[in-house]
């Protein structure tokens, strides 16, 4: 009899500790909905090919974190110690789950700069060096960031939330995560995961969001401008560029230094031609490892109470506004340059100023070819495109300097 009793007791306590019981406690239903939402994002990533390399890890992180009692991620560990702006990292190291430990890389701003290292090692700044005026288009497209800041402020959001939502307009995932993980406090009604979800979803939607805006703002004549070949760029120029940019940007906006510094370090490794092994690691293994860590932990921050609120809808709405404004600002400056250059610049390359490398540049190419099938805008659009990466890193630095 005693054996049966103890068996029943054990079974009862196992059942009480199981995740199923977790769904039944107060607020447990929210986790079920979150898990269903994670399925939606998994579907988008796998079946629709929406930035699968990031959305799939993010959505799986979302699933893991919403399994009751699994203890992979503890939002309460990340609250500030009362009266300070510090997090009790000792506690996380001692009691944290797997995703808590990995999330330290996001919170301590380690992952996004490392991703930038890989991006730098993959980027060719040649088109930008050949045509430095593309920098202007990369700068203009950052207008989306700052105008969205206004929109978010109109919703009555806090400064941290405004900045985090605005940076989505930079169309740069790592930068968005970098800024939002630094700005958002435990009082914020949105989490880093929300920002990342919005940023990556819209980056995947760039081919749908951008073309109508580009077509609405330009005339057929403007879109038909055929641009000649870019001048070849010597190796020495390509070597000087990353060093120069690092020094100038880091001195001007010190808070952009981690992002720009690593981006340019990766690029210098690539252009030097003598660090083949390091370049390969930065482009592939390191980048992939960090992408997995980043995706799954950022997904883990999407706790039910940070997603299932009105702010999530606001973030998604403002995110698309941010993207559209960025595109519009780029195209409009492109139009100005079209006039000033004596109709030599095709304004379509302006939209590539939002980072989203190389998708945005490909859109410029595609829309341009719809008018003139033999027009190859791709390399011309790559200039503003990579300038946009630098531009959004600078914009991130500005936001981090202002809001703190």
């Amino acid at each position, binding site marked *: 009899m005693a054996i049966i009793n103890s068996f029943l007791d054990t079974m009862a306590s196992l059942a009480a500790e199981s995740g199923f019981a977790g769904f039944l406690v107060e607020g447990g239903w929210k986790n079920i909905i979150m898990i269903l939402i994670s399925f939606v994002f998994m579907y988008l990533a796998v079946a629709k090919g929406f930035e699968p390399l990031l959305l799939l890890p993010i959505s799986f992180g979302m699933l893991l974190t919403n399994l009751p009692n699994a203890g992979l991620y503890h939002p309460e560990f990340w609250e500030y110690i009362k009266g300070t702006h510090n997090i009790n990292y000792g506690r996380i190291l001692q009691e944290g789950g797997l995703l808590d430990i990995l999330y330290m890389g996001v919170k301590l701003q380690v992952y996004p700069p490392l991703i930038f290292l890989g991006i730098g090692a993959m980027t060719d700044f040649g088109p*930008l*060096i*050949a045509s*430095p*005026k593309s*920098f*202007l288009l*990369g*700068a203009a497209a*950052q*207008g989306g*960031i*700052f*105008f969205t*800041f*206004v929109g978010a*402020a109109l919703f*009555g*959001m*806090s*400064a*941290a939330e*405004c*900045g985090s939502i605005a940076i989505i307009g930079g169309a740069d995932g790592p930068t968005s995560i970098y800024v939002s993980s630094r*700005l*958002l*406090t435990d*009082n*914020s009604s949105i989490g880093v995961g929300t920002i990342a979800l919005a940023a990556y979803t819209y980056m995947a939607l760039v081919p749908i969001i951008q073309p109508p805006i580009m077509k609405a703002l330009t005339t057929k004549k403007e879109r038909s401008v055929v641009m000649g070949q870019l001048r070849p760029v*010597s190796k*020495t*120029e390509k070597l*000087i*560029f990353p060093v*120069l*940019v690092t020094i*100038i*940007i880091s001195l*001007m*906006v010190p808070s952009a230094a981690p992002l720009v510094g690593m981006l340019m370090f990766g690029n210098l490794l690539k252009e030097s031609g003598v660090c083949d092994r390091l370049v390969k690691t930065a482009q592939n293994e390191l980048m992939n490892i960090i992408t997995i860590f980043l995706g799954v932990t950022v997904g883990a921050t999407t706790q039910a109470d940070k997603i299932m609120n009105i702010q999530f809808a606001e973030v998604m709405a403002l995110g698309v506004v941010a993207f559209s404004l960025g595109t519009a600002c780029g195209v409009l400056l492109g139009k100005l340059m079209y006039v000033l250059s004596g109709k030599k610049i095709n304004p379509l390359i302006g939209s590539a100023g939002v980072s989203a490398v190389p998708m945005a540049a490909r859109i410029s190419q595609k829309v341009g070819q719809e008018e003139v099938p033999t027009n190859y805008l791709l390399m011309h659009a790559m200039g503003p495109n990579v*300038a946009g990466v*630098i*531009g959004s890193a*600078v*914009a991130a630095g*500005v*936001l981090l*300097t*202002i*809001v*703190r």
Partner: protein
Amino acid sequence: MNYILNSAAQVLSGKSTIPPDQDHLGAGTVASVVITGIVVVFIALILLILLVTIYGSIFKVINNRKAKKAEDAKKADEKAKTVETKPQQEAKVTIPVVEDGIEEETVAVIMAAISAMSSASGKNLVLKSVKTAKPQRSAWSAAGIIENTRPF
């Protein structure tokens, strides 16, 4: 307007920051964020345009000079050569003997490849004739060779 400029100046100098948790940002604060942000981004990137343009043009000058020097040296070389070996120069422009049945395009492609290689290696290569290659072995002997040289 003055207020906006003032707050922009304060933000730029790092004196005025907005605490992350501050709600309901005033119009002045928001405007100063927008203006500062756009201005700083543009200044940073315009500075880069200037520097990249400057060093780009410096390199253009250097490259042009190098190219000119190389060209001058080449010209001088050629002049010396033409004086010494005039008949050879004529031989260089001989039209290659092309077998019947080979298309002009094929010959053009071969010549283009040769001229590309000769400019890279610095040697003057000449195409003298184009013939169709004849199979060197009969099918039987080729089969025999393959049979005997096949690895395990």
